[in-house]
């Protein structure tokens, strides 16, 4: 093999050409990942209102629909954000799938013996952790947004819905396990995204790891506190 090959000629609109390359897909994965991290953080912080009072979180849920106040028609801004999230999720999953298939093809033969020196559990389970998290997100939406979860569901009453859902032990456990997996996923992703978009400076490279630790710890601890609080009877 190895005859001289020309570089791929890229002719379409520059962004599509960029996305066609693996480096471009990693860039898109990083940027969409950052958007999703931002969302996760806001979602977790918003839900902390559950500890204030049932009225506080129900009013918070309602005010999300009023985002933008009188500037935009009701729920429009919320829908724009939702569509943005769906698009970000789509590209995050699309680039992940394409790159995983490429990487499998690029390493067809296994070593008989291989000792990893740097790759860790988090970096090696990104794809399957990601699949489980995606499945969890679908379940979570069905459970607490669409109300298909089986527990008595009342639209616009997030506090009551959450308590009803989390008081079922298997559901509470599933939320906790899924969030721990999310933490593992975020631990690699929140560091890796800096490399993928090329943010690297000896002055704060150390800080990138702490960012990944911090972001995954804050999101996971916040999220799993909800089912634990319901199960422990602190909230209910």
């Amino acid at each position: 093999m190895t005859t001289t090959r020309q570089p791929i000629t890229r002719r379409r609109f520059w962004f599509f050409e960029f996305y066609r390359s693996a480096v471009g897909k990693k860039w898109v994965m990083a940027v969409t990942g950052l958007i999703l991290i931002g969302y996760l953080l806001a979602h977790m912080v918003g839900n902390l209102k559950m500890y204030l009072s049932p009225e506080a979180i129900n009013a918070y849920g309602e005010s999300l629909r009023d985002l933008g106040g009188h500037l935009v028609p009701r729920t429009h801004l919320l829908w724009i954000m939702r569509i943005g999230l769906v698009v970000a999720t789509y590209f995050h999953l699309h680039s992940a799938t394409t790159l995983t298939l490429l990487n499998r093809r690029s390493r067809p033969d296994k070593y008989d013996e291989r000792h990893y020196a740097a790759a860790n559990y988090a970096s090696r389970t990104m794809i399957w952790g990601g699949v489980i998290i995606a499945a969890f997100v679908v379940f979570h939406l069905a459970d607490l947004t669409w109300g298909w979860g089986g527990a008595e569901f009342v639209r616009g009453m997030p506090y009551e819905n959450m308590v009803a859902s989390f008081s079922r032990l298997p559901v509470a456990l599933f939320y906790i396990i899924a969030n721990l997996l999310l933490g593992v996923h975020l631990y690699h992703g929140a560091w890796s995204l800096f490399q993928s978009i090329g943010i690297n400076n000896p002055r704060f490279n150390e800080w990138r790891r702490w960012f990944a630790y911090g972001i995954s710890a804050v999101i996971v601890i916040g999220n799993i506190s909800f089912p634990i609080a319901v199960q422990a009877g602190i909230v209910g």
Partner: protein
Amino acid sequence: MDLTLRVWRQSGPGDKGRFEEYPAPGIASHMSFLEMLDIVNERLTLAGVEPIAFDHDCREGICGTCGLMIDGRPHGPWEGTATCQLHMREYHDGDTITIEPWRAKGFPHIKDLVVDRRAFDRIVEAGGYITVSAGSAPDANLIPIPKEAAEYAMDAAACIGCGACVAACPNGAAQLFVAAKYSHLSLLPQGQPERWSRAEAMVDTMEHYFGSCSNHGECEAACPKNISLDFIALLNRDYIRAKWKNRRLAGQS
């Protein structure tokens, strides 16, 4: 000391390949790993067995020709050394050593422990060069370069192109090699004229042959020259910048 080798034997690309065990008695601890292989091969030849094919040249860690997966570690257990710099004092009497070739789609198998690494040449041809005015040699230090930049470029230039990064990568990616070859030119003033076309050409050529970097960091751990992942970030950043760049302002960098 007496050792046992478990060596990957494969007569050619069509062959399925298998491990074979060879006893290696009477190995001295001051031998290098490749000298040990030479001795085993000599004995195999005398016994009428085809010797084990492996790549080697300088045997002092500068040419990048040697490269073996030794007990599941590229270039063996020592950090920051090539296979040829590994010495038998690492091993003890009775040890079994497993030796495999680099395995990646971008490195097609040739024979036994030898793989075809010409994909690296294609990547360097695509952009790993600078334009200079021919003629008499210019004076040294004619172009002022900050010490930090010169040293950092030198860190990248330490790459010997052995392919351990590809061999180590769970994705069969060559990002560390390409990043090193890209950076040692693009960090210096002499490398600026082609900087943006180099970023595109080298990455696009790389992607013909190799997988994609997912930041495992195995390459950095395997590299006999300890080349840093930081260069991968530089390559990634310059690739996107190359897409944005108004090339008429290239000199403004």
